[in-house]
């Protein structure tokens, strides 16, 4: 496995160069892989190329503010956990940011012990991927799973999903069996190959879908199957079981 996959990665975006440099020094010293960007567009360029576990975003920046930036980051890589830092917070902006899916809003100057503690907590949140072409279902699952403390990456086709599992280590991948550019078993195999430790949950309309492909995948080692319409609490307890260290039968990475 390449080293970039194992090092937790943090993106720091602040229009103040010295703030970027300082956070980079501190985080690098702690063993994170750190990239910095002075504005929204160059940050998005980095996000397109690399997955980040955590993004530390300054709120007030010229051109695109931290919240606008996060909305774009979320479209590209919804698994990135955002911590927004603002010199002048008010409740309305804070609520808007949290509503948009940002994880935390901190006041500047930041309490570094708190910030670093939060980065640590974020990295401890199990990374899961949902591979489904139903945008509404994805959005709902994102909210539900995020609320339960999972980092949630969304992919709407088999290709994107296969690319993603090669970039980051996932704890669980939820795979819709019917995808626009292929079927779920392709994704399942891609996960198996790139990310052998990952658990898989197959999402399907009915057991006989795709001429027994579901059964086939289960036989090959998929951990669970989830029938549409969803029983959310059953899904959550399955996820809980699979991500709890020691209980799923798979040792930690």
């Amino acid at each position, binding site marked *: 496995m390449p080293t970039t996959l194992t090092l937790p990665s943090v993106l720091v975006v602040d*229009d103040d160069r*010295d*703030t970027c440099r*300082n956070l980079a020094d*501190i985080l690098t*010293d702690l063993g994170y892989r750190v990239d910095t960007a002075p504005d929204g567009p160059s940050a998005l360029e980095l996000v397109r190329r690399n997955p980040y576990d955590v993004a530390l975003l300054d709120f007030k920046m010229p051109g695109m503010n931290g919240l606008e930036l996060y909305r774009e980051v979320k479209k590209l890589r919804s698994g990135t956990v955002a911590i927004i830092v603002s*010199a*002048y917070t008010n409740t309305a902006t804070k609520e808007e940011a949290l509503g948009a899916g940002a994880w935390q809003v901190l006041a500047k100057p930041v309490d*570094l012990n708190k910030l670093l503690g939060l980065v640590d907590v974020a990295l401890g949140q199990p990374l899961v991927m949902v591979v489904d072409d139903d945008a509404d279902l994805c959005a709902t699952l994102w909210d539900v799973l995020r609320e339960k403390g999972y980092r949630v990456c969304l992919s709407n086709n088999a290709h994107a999903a296969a690319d993603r599992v090669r970039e980051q280590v996932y704890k669980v991948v939820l795979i819709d069996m019917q995808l626009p550019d292929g079927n779920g078993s392709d994704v399942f195999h891609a996960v198996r190959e790139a990310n052998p430790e990952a658990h898989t949950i197959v999402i399907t309309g009915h057991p006989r879908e795709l001429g027994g492909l579901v059964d086939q995948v289960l036989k090959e080692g998929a951990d669970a199957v989830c029938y549409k319409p969803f029983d959310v609490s059953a899904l959550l307890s399955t996820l809980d079981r699979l991500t709890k260290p020691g209980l799923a039968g798979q040792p930690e990475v």
Partner: protein
Amino acid sequence: MLKLVDRFQRYQDLQHYVGWTEQDDHNVRAVAFMLAPHLNPLIDDFYAEIERHPSARKVITGGAVQIARLKGSLIRWIHELLTGPYDAGYVERRSRVGQRHVEIGLDQVYTNVALSRLRSGLVAALGATWTADRTALVTTIQSLNKLLDLDLALIEDAYQAEYLARQQRVERMAAIGQVGGGVAHELRNPLNVIKTSVYFLLNARTLTPEKRAEHLQRIERHVLLADGVITALSDFARMPVPDLKSVVVQRVMEEAVEANPPLDTVHVIHDWPADLPPVLADANQLRIVFANLVRNAREAMPQGGTLTLTGRAVDGRVDVTVADTGVGIPAEELLRIMEPLYTTKARGLGLGLALSRAILEKNTGSLHVTSQPGTGTTFTVRLTADGGK
């Protein structure tokens, strides 16, 4: 607010204005005892009327007990009105009525109409009990009217002064809040850098001598930055009196442009007629104004454009324009851009244009702006031409 001595002088001045004489004083005192038995019904009527008007009624919150006390005060007030002496203490007590009305939220109009009602009652009582000749009655009523009008003027004067003082206090508090927000942002950025550098120096697992030096220098630089914010604010608060001299505006503008060079993609046009007269201004202060305008123009044209700098003689004035072809300013922002601490930028205190305007006002000039979003902005600095009166 006026001091006691000033108030008394003002009262004496107003006495002259209405033509108050010893004779008026005498006339009023002479009827004081005559009116005494009629005062209680007048006062009952006074408060009965207040009961009928919710806006006046609402300020009496203490019920019957308070009304009884207020009636006692009103009796003393009328007694003092009729007998004087009209000295500094008298003026002070009248003024307190106006101040008190602001405190309790009683609109001045109720003082005016309540006094009108009291005046009618006093005149009616006088007419009913008058036994001497009618001419004397008329002069006595005139005296009483002057006295009541003077009292009304005193109360209203104090009311206005107190009202204004309160309003200014509210505005000052609002201004502090606004300054707080602007300063908070500008100071927190350097503080944030300092704090994180200190954290790194204290906690880094591996700290090379190069990194140590780099962070110490960074801390020093941001202490200076924070200091600069405070200097900018205090400079704004106490700007020195300008040293007005004959100044060639073109030269000052060239210096300002040189110190704040526009981007390479900006085409700069200088348009200064050879016969442009010099202006009367403080060159150092004028340079600050021009530098602000040139910097703003630069920030308005991140993609390049044309910056046109022009001087024109107009009726004993010199108009200097700084025109950019940048993003322009929306109409709703245009009204506010010269307010202190108003800013639409991510960085900066929002003092540039406010400072420029304040400087120009002290340099017998003025600052004007027109803008078209998407097309550009033109600032005009209007200065006084020197010589040739």
